[in-house]
């Protein structure tokens, strides 16, 4: 199975700014890989290096065995990238924008027009095909850019925060599309919407201050956290003794216990006997994210 491999990949912009710090990563080129992290964590820098638009300062990276520095030309035959701050050109229509990008990729004019119409249809924005981009809403503009990548022949697609600024409905529509798309192509997606990563991603990477803190699917990340279950106690709680786990005050003010499956069952029985309202759930990606980025969920009680 082809892979993306990073070996001690680092990027330093200047003396004081280390954007990526010895990233080691191995990803199978299927499904969706989502890189989550706060603003400035280094997500865009990693995308730019892997999509051959930025040179690393140290280390190496390979896509399907091809070095991103010495074999960039070969890699560019296989990839498409939608940068974070990209915008469709105001004086062009979506159809012109998509078809021009396809022509840059080497498709004939006729084929480009055909593919752009198909992509617009797939994204449900055919009615905007001939409207100037400057008159489109922010959400439609983002969809047009995603359509450029979808319409291309690239089997590896880099989407840098594609849903930023989209309303919930547009975001949901784009998610549906990406869920279909990931069956046939590999999508490297960055986002700071944890829900988005949870819904779309087969594997998730957590990046913080240029360091890759953890990689895995949701189940693996839960296991790495050590406490795969969360008990949220609604209302007041009398003193409760836990054998294994961590009690914290959640962001919503409720008491939250991170614990193992066995302990969750035991505590659940106690809480039922006490007639305390509670819920037991697998820990969410948000819990995992804050756990790995050392952000305290609350104070231990």
């Amino acid at each position, binding site marked *: 199975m082809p892979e993306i491999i990073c070996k001690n990949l680092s990027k330093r912009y200047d003396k004081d700014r280390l954007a990526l710090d010895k990233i080691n990563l191995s990803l199978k080129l299927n499904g969706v890989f989502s890189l989550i992290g706060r603003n400035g964590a280094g997500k865009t820098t990693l995308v730019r290096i892997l999509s051959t638009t930025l040179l690393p300062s140290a280390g190496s990276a390979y896509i399907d065995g091809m070095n991103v520095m010495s074999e960039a030309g070969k890699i560019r035959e296989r990839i498409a990238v939608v940068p974070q701050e990209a915008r469709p050109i105001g004086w062009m229509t979506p159809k012109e924008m998509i078809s021009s990008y396809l022509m*840059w990729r080497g498709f004939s004019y006729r084929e480009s027009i055909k593919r752009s119409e198909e992509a617009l249809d797939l994204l449900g924005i055919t009615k905007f095909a001939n409207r100037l981009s400057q008159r489109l809403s922010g959400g439609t503009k983002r969809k047009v850019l995603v359509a450029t990548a979808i319409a291309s022949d690239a089997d590896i697609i*880099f989407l840098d925060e594609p849903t930023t600024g989209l309303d919930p409905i547009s975001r949901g529509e784009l998610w549906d599309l990406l869920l279909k798309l990931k069956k046939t192509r590999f999508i490297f997606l960055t986002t700071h919407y944890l829900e988005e990563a949870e819904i779309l991603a087969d594997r998730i990477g957590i990046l913080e201050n240029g360091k890759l803190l953890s990689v895995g699917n949701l189940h693996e990340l839960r296991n790495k956290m050590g406490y795969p279950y969360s008990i949220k106690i609604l209302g007041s709680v009398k003193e409760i003794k836990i054998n294994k786990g961590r009690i914290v005050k959640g962001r919503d003010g409720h008491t939250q216990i991170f614990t193992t499956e066995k302990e969750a069952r035991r505590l659940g029985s106690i809480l039922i006997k006490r007639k305390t309202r509670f819920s037991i759930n697998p820990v969410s990606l948000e819990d995992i994210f804050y756990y790995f980025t050392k952000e305290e969920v609350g104070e231990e009680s």
Partner: protein
Amino acid sequence: MKRNVASQLLASILVNAVYAMKNMPVMLINTLLTPFSFLIVITFISRGSLLGVAIEGALIMTMVSNGLGLQGDLSHLKNDMKLQEMVVGSPTSATIYLTGMAISELIYALPALILLAILAVLFLSLTPFGIISIVGAMVMIFIVSVALGFFFSTLTADVIQSFAFGGMLSTILSALPPVYYLITYIPMPFRYLAYISPTTYAAEIAQNAAGFINISTTNLVLDWSILAVFAVVFLFIAIKKSRWVDI
């Protein structure tokens, strides 16, 4: 998949010229405004005696301002639209992208060039060799301007800065030097200052071709050579300085 190089070139031309002109015709006024306003002013002030020189000047200015326009356009598409990053991460090479963009500037200048060519046919009496000389000088000054535009686009990271640069360069290169008037109108020793600008050489070739001035064959060869040196030097610097992939 076999990539179609002609399509890749055409993409830049469509994006930067054809679609811009088709969807926003008001942009065309910009290409016509500056060369024609100078032409009209010079013609009126000279009571028509410099009409022919001004037509040639407008032809040269059109080539210069559109060649220099590459700077603003490259900067806009790279820094504002992040389009260049999408193109870098695609099978298009830097050479194809930039060549297409340079040609697009020429296409963008076509409406002005066509109108000026009509005026030239009406008001200039040219031999076939004269026509070839003028067209040659225009092509050469366009290459020099594109090289300068490309060079300055590598220096500017901000579109506002780059448009300011473009306007300034266009004035310095085509409004101040003896493009719309004869170099003999400049008193000595200031005349030598005019030779700092490459447009002076192109204008001299064009004015000689139309019979407005008479320069020796040696000076003519020198004019062509200096234009060629300007083009090569600035293209070389621009290629050396420019970065397709960021570091």
